[in-house]
């Protein structure tokens, strides 16, 4: 069953570019190569001040990922994100409807 998912995650602003690239590459290859699913959108928000400090981080970079994939695939994304405790401060996975993407 293919669903449309939206994943928002926060990476500390202080994180080195390399480790972010590694993380995003891991997610990308997982979706596109292992599950042959589609990444609809992968965008970066501007550096944002967090509403409260998380693990002593005051600023964070938000990344929004939209993907059309299966539930097993999204579970693997979830496990990747939850395993990266130092580079991912928070993440939220949401199932969205097609209508919301069109906007």
């Amino acid at each position, binding site marked *: 069953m293919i669903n449309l998912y939206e994943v928002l995650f926060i990476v500390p602003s202080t994180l080195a570019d390399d480790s972010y690239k590694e993380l995003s590459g891991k997610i990308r290859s997982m979706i596109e190569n292992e599950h042959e699913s589609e990444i609809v959108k992968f965008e970066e928000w501007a550096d944002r001040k967090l509403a*409260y400090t998380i693990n002593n981080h005051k600023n964070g970079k938000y990344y929004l990922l939209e993907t059309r994939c299966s539930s097993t695939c999204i579970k693997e994304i979830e496990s990747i994100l939850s395993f990266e405790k130092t580079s991912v401060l928070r993440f939220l996975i949401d199932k969205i409807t097609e209508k919301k993407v069109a906007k």
Partner: protein
Amino acid sequence: MSGKRDGYDRRDRKPRKRASALLQGDVEINYKNVELLTNFITERKKIAPRRMTGNTASQQRQISTEIKKARYMALLPYTVNHK
């Protein structure tokens, strides 16, 4: 029931708004739309009651879940006293 009693009248404190003008038309209540959601939290960062905002019950349910998501993602604060 409209007379003021002892100079105090609930309506003196806060004018009553009937329908929320913010949600007219094609507005999507979403946790990422922080600017919209900030209209529905109080000074103390609590979720504003319907009597203040004039939301319908279903709007209020949506708003409260979306505010909670936004709080989790540190887009909105839980309280004014965050360390």
